[in-house]
């Protein structure tokens, strides 16, 4: 091997993994993505978004059908738009932009990301604080701003702790987040089941539903009434579809989830996002709405202002505080981390600690304002609108350019500082998207579609003018050589790293796993079932409900202790298998 080759290989080895394509031996099967998307999309946000659909005045039929269609469109978007590009490039969007969009585009992109991730983090910490406020006897916060200084203190304190945890212990919290998924799924479903009888009793005088049409009638009369919080006719089917689809625009059309799907063996694994879209969004949003409406009626408050902590408490008892705190933090943590990374990219000349503290300070202030979490759905939709042009630009490079004979990585090959076509395209699309919004021509939830299409067209035209259709023989040669070296480096890694994911299969681990599944998941599910289907009158309902509350908190404790133990023991097995080089059974 020549010195040049050796130097290149060494420099590749010294590079941050994030800046290189994901090697083949680190790719994951479908099970990984089923779990990952389930945990990402069953979170504290679902409490808020469910209530938002009620406040926006959707009808039950539009919800049942619209959410199905909208979330299906989201799954298809991940499958057909995001996954193919992620699998082809094996890069995160951030890295792709760094490689191919010059200096300014990634900085601006990261600047936008800072704001978006800060908003999501702040919102989720506020959600957690709504649970904690009850424990400290602080009144409900029903205004967009804090009306009690102690609520602000709690939210700010929770933010400070979250920022420190994200900074020092991100990996631990991220790991902890992975064991939450099955539990969150059960709790969200159980919460809705537990409150249905009391909601039904207020309407009909009966605690029991005799058919699905009873449920539809109940939900239509008490939850999804078709009248919004201002007393006007609410949103229709198209808007429901649009919100469901647009809730994750920045992740699918905006390609942010390239960061996750770059690890997929095949692009069809984009369909695995269905666990997040169909369960996390569809079921959890409806359940959260039911819980919110029932709690609002019990507390004689508007659903627009009833706090997630109070909802979770009525639905799940003390476990409700756990779910809101855990769901809030496990969502806030990765978003805080992303916000910190994005901020470092925007301000590379400022020390990492200082930047993280700056971001943290904004989160601390933002978390004191309930306004942010109550507006999370429109915030997500507008965030998508800001970021989606870049998704279109990358889509153009990866799908359109090869068909037109252009170079996908033309800017990198050309070697100029900034990608002017990308900058101009982004600017035009923002003006277009927000201009359409101002003119109110189409519902704002659909603005990402024409904006995305426009970005593809404009970028293709401009990139050609700037040289995307030319050849760069020297640069292409260097690039090919570099890719060859990367492949060789990956082959070396593959030989060294054990690439089979090992799941603990010893008897003790299996026993532990069985216990947390039965006690942590099945028992609460059965108890919730009893509350819904075995409460012939209100007294029996209260008896069943209290039993559910009293037992579920212990089930929750056992679940987390044992699931965490299972995870740590499995990891220890994995590490010892890797260090011994022994063959171990794969999953």
């Amino acid at each position, binding site marked *: 091997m020549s010195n040049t080759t050796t130097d290149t290989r060494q420099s590749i080895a010294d590079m941050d993994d994030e800046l290189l394509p994901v090697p083949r031996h680190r790719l994951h099967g479908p099970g990984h993505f089923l779990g990952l998307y389930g945990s990402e999309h069953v979170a504290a946000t679902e409490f808020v978004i469910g209530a938002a659909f009620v406040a926006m005045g959707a009808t039950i039929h539009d919800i049942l059908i619209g959410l199905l269609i909208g979330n299906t469109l989201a799954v298809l978007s991940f499958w057909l738009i995001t996954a193919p590009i992620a699998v082809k490039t094996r890069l995160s969007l951030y890295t792709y932009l760094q490689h191919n969009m010059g200096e300014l585009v990634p900085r601006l992109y990261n600047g936008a990301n800072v704001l978006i991730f800060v908003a999501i983090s702040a919102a989720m910490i506020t959600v957690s604080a709504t649970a904690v406020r009850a424990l400290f006897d602080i009144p409900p916060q029903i205004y967009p701003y804090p009306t009690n200084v102690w609520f602000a203190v709690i939210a700010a304190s929770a933010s400070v702790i979250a920022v420190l945890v994200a900074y020092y212990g991100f990996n631990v919290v991220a790991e902890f987040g992975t064991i939450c998924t099955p539990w969150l799924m059960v709790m969200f479903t159980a919460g809705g089941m537990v409150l249905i009888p*009391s909601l039904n009793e*207020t309407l009909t005088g009966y605690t029991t539903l005799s058919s699905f049409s009873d449920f539809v009638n109940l939900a239509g009369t008490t939850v999804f009434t078709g009248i*919004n919080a201002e007393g006007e006719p609410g949103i229709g089917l198209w808007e429901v579809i649009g919100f469901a689809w647009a809730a994750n625009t920045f992740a699918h059309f905006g390609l942010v989830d390239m960061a996750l799907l770059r690890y997929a063996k095949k692009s069809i694994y984009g369909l695995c996002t269905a666990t997040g879209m169909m369960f996390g969004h569809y079921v959890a949003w409806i359940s959260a709405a039911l819980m919110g*409406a029932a709690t*609002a*009626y*019990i507390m*004689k408050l508007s659903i*627009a202002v009833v706090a997630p902590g109070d909802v979770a408490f009525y639905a799940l008892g003390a476990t409700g505080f756990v779910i809101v705190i855990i769901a809030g933090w496990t969502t806030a943590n990765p978003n805080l981390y992303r916000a910190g990374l994005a901020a470092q990219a925007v301000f590379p000349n400022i020390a990492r600690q200082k930047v993280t503290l700056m971001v943290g300070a904004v989160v601390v202030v933002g978390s004191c304002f309930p306004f942010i979490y109550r507006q999370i759905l429109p915030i997500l939709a507008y965030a998508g609108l800001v970021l989606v042009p870049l998704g279109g630009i990358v889509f153009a490079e990866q799908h359109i350019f090869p068909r037109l004979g252009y170079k996908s990585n033309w800017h990198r090959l050309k070697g100029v500082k900034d990608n002017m076509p990308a900058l101009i395209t982004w600017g035009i699309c923002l003006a277009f998207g927000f201009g359409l919004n101002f003119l109110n021509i189409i519902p704002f939830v659909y603005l990402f579609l024409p904006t995305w299409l426009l970005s593809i067209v404009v970028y293709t035209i401009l990139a050609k003018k700037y040289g995307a259709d030319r050849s760069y023989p020297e640069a292409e040669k260097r690039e090919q050589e570099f890719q060859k070296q990367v492949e060789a480096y990956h082959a070396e890694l593959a030989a060294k790293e054990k690439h089979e994911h090992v799941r603990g299969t010893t008897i003790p681990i299996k026993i532990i796993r069985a216990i947390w599944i039965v006690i942590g998941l099945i028992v609460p599910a059965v108890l919730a079932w009893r509350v819904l289907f075995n409460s012939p009158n209100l007294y029996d309902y209260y008896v069943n409900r209290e039993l559910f509350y009293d037992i579920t908190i212990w089930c929750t404790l056992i679940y987390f202790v044992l699931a965490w133990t299972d995870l740590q023991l499995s990891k220890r097995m994995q590490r010892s298998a890797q260090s011994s080089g022994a063959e171990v059974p794969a999953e």
Partner: protein
Amino acid sequence: MTLRIAAAFTLAMLAGSTLARAETTLTIATEDNGDMIRMQALSQAFEADNPDIKLDWLVLDENELRQRVTTDIATKGGQFDIVTIGTYEAPIWAERGWLVPLDNLPKSYDVDDILPPIREALSFDGELYGAPFYGESAFTMYRTDLFEQAGLEMPEKPTWEFIKDAARKLDDESNEVYGICLRGKPGWGENMAFLTAMANSYGARWFDMDWKPQLDSVAWTATITDYIELMTEVGPPDAEANGYNENLALFQSGKCAIWIDATAAGQFVIDAESNVADSVGFALAPDKGLGKSANWLWAWALAIPAGSEHQDAAKRFIAWATSKEYLELVAEKEGWSDVPPGTRTSLYENQAYLDAAPFAKITLESIQAADPDNPTVEDVPYTGIQYVVIPEFQGIGTAVGQRFADALAGEIPIDEALENAQWVTGKVIERARFLQ
């Protein structure tokens, strides 16, 4: 020319003022009871006198009305301009700022004419939030012929001891005449309305000053024990299924010697549908000599949600619909006996009404004796006589009512019912107060 211009100008002004005084539509959410249905029919008179206001009525059953109105009113949605509420909701909603205070009513409305306990029950912090169109208390109705046959004389203010004794003497199951009929159907507004009032007269209370439930107290035990023993011995069969309507039917068909229930029943037990119309006497609800009797207080009222965009027009309608003139209109169209009772002092000074309603005096006395701010013998942290003015009471009352109905049916012993009642009340209130 000048005249033409002046005429044209005048016409233009008139047109302008007509446009300016464009029609306002008031949306009224109301319950499907007789008084409201009658009001809807008579409201054409209001529209005729107020051509700038159109009325749009939405009639719902009580549960759905509460549900829909609460949802809209809590969000200040403004779907409804006028809502029908009861004395249970009025203080809760007023405290939350959901209702418009009914100040600045016209002098002719004579707000001081509203019976003081009714006015108090519909007020919060000294301001009136609901204008009553119907009011009631509870009293004792009895068969004068059976009393005479038995040589008994009903005092004007009977005690529980007297009532129990009389019921036992008058019971004649072989002839399907039951000594006493009382509510047994479970529900916060059914059996628990009666049992709470009865418990008040026994010296019981729902909560002490620290909000600890008191269903395990001696007074509650005595109340429920006496109630169940009496009903089991001399009440009608399957009494746990009988609410107000069922007991009315029993009394009208001559099967109850004594019935303690709402004063609203007064007109029905003496009307043409009643087989015993000529043999009904009225007395106050019984007491135990502790200073509180088993009467209660309820009113249906019209209120204006804070989200309404037509508050002035709504006040005009409310002032008309609950005025002395409206009562006279009902009397003119349908007779004095159909005039909605229980709201105004002047009604009870009207001889024509007193002649048409022989129960009127007792009704007035029952209402005047009601004190929703001090409903019990001992001090309590709540208001409300046959309910507790807290949002959780509907659930608590219904659940407790179910246990007492089960005890009445013989399915569970009395002490278990009380224990269950204490437990469920404690759990629900603990949860509610935890979040306050």
